[in-house]
């Protein structure tokens, strides 16, 4: 069921909750059970900063079925101010020629997709130019 997985991911998708390894300080986003650096299983939840910059991006002109009516749109790798990187759509871009690596962005709460016509609405983060 898509609803069970979606529900499980709410803390990271809605509130940017990550896990910080209590032993070596590694920050896992999305949160993990085992630290890839020191194999510890103890993490404490932290909330990531919602501001960062574009590390790289691409413009999707032929999208997957669910997003085919939203093309063209940009997907970027964002480095947040606390140095963690994540992938997100860069929303509200009018002129893709003016999109630049290094541009400052802010993560906002948006609708990502619908589970068909009768299924749930799915929300999460997108980046917008700051």
């Amino acid at each position, binding site marked *: 069921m898509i609803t069970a997985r979606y529900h499980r991911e709410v803390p990271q998708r*809605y509130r940017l909750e990550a896990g910080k390894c209590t032993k070596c300080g590694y920050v896992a986003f999305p949160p993990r059970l085992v630290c890839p650096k020191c194999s510890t299983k103890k993490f404490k939840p932290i909330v990531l900063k919602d501001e960062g910059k574009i590390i790289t991006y691409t413009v999707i002109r032929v999208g997957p079925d669910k997003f085919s009516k939203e093309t063209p749109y940009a997907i970027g790798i964002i480095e947040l101010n606390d140095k963690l990187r994540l992938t997100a759509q860069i929303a509200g871009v009018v002129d893709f020629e003016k999109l630049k690596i290094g541009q400052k962005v802010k993560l906002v709460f*948006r609708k990502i997709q619908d589970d068909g016509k009768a299924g749930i609405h799915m929300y999460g983060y997108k980046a917008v130019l700051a």
Partner: protein
Amino acid sequence: MVGIVGFGAYLPRYRIKAETIAKQWGMDANSIIRGLQLNEKTVPGQDEDTITISVAAAKNALLRAQIDPQDIGALYIGSESHPYAVKPSGTIVIDALGIGPHVHVASYEFACKAGSEAMYVAANLVKAGEMKYAMGIGADTSQGAPGDALEYSASAGGAAFIMGTEKVVAEILFTHSYTSDTPDFWRREGEDYPRHGGRFTGDPAYFKHVMGAATALLEKSKMKPSDFKYAVFHMPNGKFPQEVGKRLGFTKEQLEVGWIVPWMGNTYSGSSPTGLAAILDVAKPGDMIFMVSFGSGAGSDGFIFKVTKEITKVQNRAPKLKDYLDKDKIYLDYGEYAKFRKKIKLNE
């Protein structure tokens, strides 16, 4: 002292001009721009709805209030465009804001006054001593049928207000509600677009209820229009709030700051609440504010606020309504607008 401890608004960046809509349907743009005093309206992005608008406005309110979201005991959202028919918008909004799970959540619905209802109930729960803070939100992504007069006004946006008793920025001195069975505007279950009673939406509906609540509020408070620095009324178009203000004895100057409809459109449940947010953005300690909402069906909620010295500390902590209204606008043509608002039938 009970009142607003944090406030925030949000408007989408997209716009469509009244002129663009008029051209599509072969109407005279000037009669709409001059007659209804509507220049352009906000349009939600394809990834925006009442829930995302509520989250954005509430984040701004939290930035201003600087309180622990966990201390919020209730969150109410008034809207006529809740994304789910069954599942309260607030359930998603609290999780996005880090409020709860020990919180009371409900959706309100009363055409354009659902937002002021949420504010009213939130303030009174705090007043009753049930909780430290409560949030009331008015937000909408309203639709008018293609070619209908409502298409020029139905827009998107919202405002959020956190009610509390400490560090109050605007004290609520008086409230009054006025309601009757008046079928001026409705939408039956399963219908895509609302229906309205044409000219019936004026005197027997908007004017009767706004005047009813406003007159009672003035009597209750033993105040007169000249005692207020600002007044804001529900804004279904540019003309009605100006006209009702005049009938009650308010001046153009008192209405000016909250009268954002010519460039925003009617944000329904967010209409007078966004107007109030625009006023609080610039208000000074001691200013008195008069607000009356209106929801078809029909009813009005009135509030009298007194701005405190705390206001100047919070105004610059979050973006202002004017920032959203004037900056970074993206204009849509009618085809893009029809696609954004899902007015085009697709093969799914």
